[in-house]
């Protein structure tokens, strides 16, 4: 049972003038399934390569357990990295791939084969040891890559978007599989992804990154329900963002002057605002309802509707603000508007008021 914590002690990584990772400071606990979530180019892969030893931090330290990893090469660290394209060795058989870490450590041929077969049993692929890598399916290769990484029992398994090349069904299946393997072997998994679904379903904790900065580290539910920044609120899950200025605040309740009128929301994280502070109000599409005379009432123009099986999405426009309303498909045909103006509303507790900041995808 690996119990070594990974400490990122004020880690910054720069390439010339470009800052890939800016002052990352956090502790990943031993045995945890930890995800870094962020759009591409946010520095999450750089941070992962730094933990595995392919780049050194420009500033700060990386500690595994109590040991500073400075100057220790990737081949001497107790980490194993699973690459985005898996990087299985095409000229070797499956068993040779899995046994490669043992081979370079001088383990004998028979012992290697025995261990490879054990690992193949563990990933539920017995008997494929003599096949070539290209004879396996995408999901099987995925599992072989994991088995290879686990062959020498590392303390930490690092995964760099390993599911992004798989099709949707398999991706969903592998989420469960990965989580199950992690719980079975009890290792620390550090998982990199831009797919919030993967991060939220599998992780014990998630760090959301943007432009090299870690914006929030929390449990998936907290990340989704109580984002700390505008970026997290807009990146994780869908959100309607309405910009405005704080009018008054009484306790948690904040009144915001917006182009759609004066709206009430909750100050996220118990923050206190001054009158006139620029802010965003975030409302999840599923919290927006078709109703008249609500405590927060908006009138919007109907644009279009999309049907996505389990849900129905309505796209609306109020002034310059694009709004989106989602309704769970209950299976009964519902009376929905199909044009003209639509009255909308949302509860004040469901609206998060966050300081003005960068939005994802904006």
């Amino acid at each position, binding site marked *: 049972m690996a119990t070594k914590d990974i400490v990122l002690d004020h880690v910054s990584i720069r390439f010339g003038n470009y800052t890939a990772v800016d002052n990352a400071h956090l502790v990943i606990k031993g045995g945890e399934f930890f995800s870094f979530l962020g759009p591409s180019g946010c520095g999450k892969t750089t941070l992962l390569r730094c933990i595995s030893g392919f780049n050194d931090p420009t500033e700060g330290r990386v500690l595994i357990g109590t040991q500073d990893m400075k100057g220790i090469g*990737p081949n001497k660290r107790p980490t*194993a990295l699973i690459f985005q394209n898996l990087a299985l*060795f095409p000229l070797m058989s499956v068993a040779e791939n899995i046994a*490669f*870490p043992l*081979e370079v450590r001088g383990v004998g041929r028979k012992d290697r084969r025995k261990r490879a077969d054990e690992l193949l049993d563990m990933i539920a692929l017995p008997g494929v040891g003599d096949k070539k890598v290209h004879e396996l399916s995408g999901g099987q290769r995925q599992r072989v890559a994991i088995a290879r990484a686990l062959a020498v029992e590392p303390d930490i398994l690092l995964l760099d978007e390993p599911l992004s090349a798989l099709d949707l069904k398999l991706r969903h299946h592998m989420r469960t599989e990965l989580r199950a393997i992690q719980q079975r072997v009890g290792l620390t998994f550090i998982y990199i992804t831009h797919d919030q679904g993967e991060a939220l379903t599998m992780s014990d904790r998630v760090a959301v990154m943007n432009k090299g900065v870690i914006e929030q580290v929390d449990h998936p539910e907290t990340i989704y329900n109580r984002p700390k920044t505008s970026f997290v609120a807009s990146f994780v899950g869908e959100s309607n963002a309405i910009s405005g200025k704080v009018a008054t605040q009484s306790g948690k309740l904040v009144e915001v002057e917006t182009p759609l009128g004066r709206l009430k929301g909750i100050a996220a994280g118990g923050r206190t605002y001054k009158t006139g502070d620029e802010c965003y109000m975030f409302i999840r599409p599923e919290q927006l309802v078709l109703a008249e005379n609500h405590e927060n009432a908006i009138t919007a123009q109907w644009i279009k509707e999309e049907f996505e099986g389990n849900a129905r999405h309505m796209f609306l426009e109020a002034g310059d603000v694009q709004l989106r309303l989602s309704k769970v498909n209950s299976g009964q045909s519902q009376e929905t508007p199909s044009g003209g103006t639509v009255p909308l509303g949302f509860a004040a507790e469901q609206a998060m008021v966050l300081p003005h900041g960068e939005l994802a995808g904006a």
Partner: protein
Amino acid sequence: MNRGTGGGFIAIGFSLLFFTFLFGPLIIMVITAFNSSSFPRITPWECFTTDWFGVLFGNDRLMTGLLNSLVIAIGVVAIAVPIGLAGALALSELGPKLRATLYTVLITPILIPGVVLGISTIVFWGALGRSVGADYGTFFYNGMFLTLAGQVTFISAYAMLVFLARLQRFDPLLTEAALDLGATPGQAFRKILLPFLGPAIGSAAFLTFLASFENYNTTVFTILSGNTFTTALASKVRHGTDPSLSALAVIIIGITLIGAIVHEAYARRQAAIRSGTAQRSRIYGNPVLKTLVHPLTVFAILAGAAGFAAWQGSQYDSNACEAQILEEKRAIQQQLLEEQRKRMQEQRQQQTAPTTAPETPGQASPSPFGGAFKPGTLSPGSDAEPSGDAPKSNSPFGGAFKPGALGPSGEPAQETPKNGSGFGSAFKPGSLKPE
């Protein structure tokens, strides 16, 4: 093939012509290797012989050259392949700007004419040798060493191109993965990159070997007073050729054919294995046929056949036939000689009797063509010559232009050693005389 896609007689005829053009010279060369005629030719066919192979192997200059070529080629492979690999690896690690520059530098030797490389190699090493005070016995003035050095300069660039092409398809993440899994950089290189480059190493070695073996332009300078196979061959051709070169061609064609067939067997086997249809295929599914078409079996069979042919050839003795041919030739000569003698006797008898020479030698025709165009020259009976002239004829054309040669009874005599005139007796006063 149908008319719509350009079939028909024209296409077939063209194909025939095309293949004749391609293979005609080779086929003729192979045939001449077995003709006992001392000049490489097919007609007249004299005797089937394998002696030219013996002549070939008996040629010391060629055989020493061959040995030198092999030693140099092996040396070039041993040096140029690692250098090419190092160059390719360096190129693949560099940034785009530096990469373009280094690429140009490394590729330049290929673009420079071999003659220039050859001369500059001698000059460079000679100057270096003089500057360290080395004498002529040292390697600075050794043809083998200079050839090796000169060839490596540009052949390693060939090897580098082969490696570059292969490296472009290498995923550098594989090396990182190996490092991450605990391999040292050396292990990652040996166990991941080298096996991936395996096919390229093979083709680079083959290419550099051939490039070295067949090189002439550079080698002819750098080998100095020595000989490689190509320089020996070139000087041999310059001094006149004989069918032993055809014999060499037969050997080279044979080796090439065996190599090509074995490679094809290998390639087909690999394709069948890779496609996974090997089990179901009629050939590869059958244990006997499978063994039979295995590249090693194919090689063993072909090499065995070639060896057997060589052994048979070495046992074959064409002396009897050649002696017979020689005998026939001698007989023909003898016969011609006889006829000549007879004819001369007849002439002497004819001329001693009448002595009717209307034109004295002093009154020779002023025409620069002599009497060659005079009406009587070609007349059947114009072989009336003043006696005593014929013995002095020294013509390189023998008596071919003798008036009598064109007469119905006149066989051109091959030996007329005593004829002195360049034009035979065509200009002799007597030949103008109408009978």
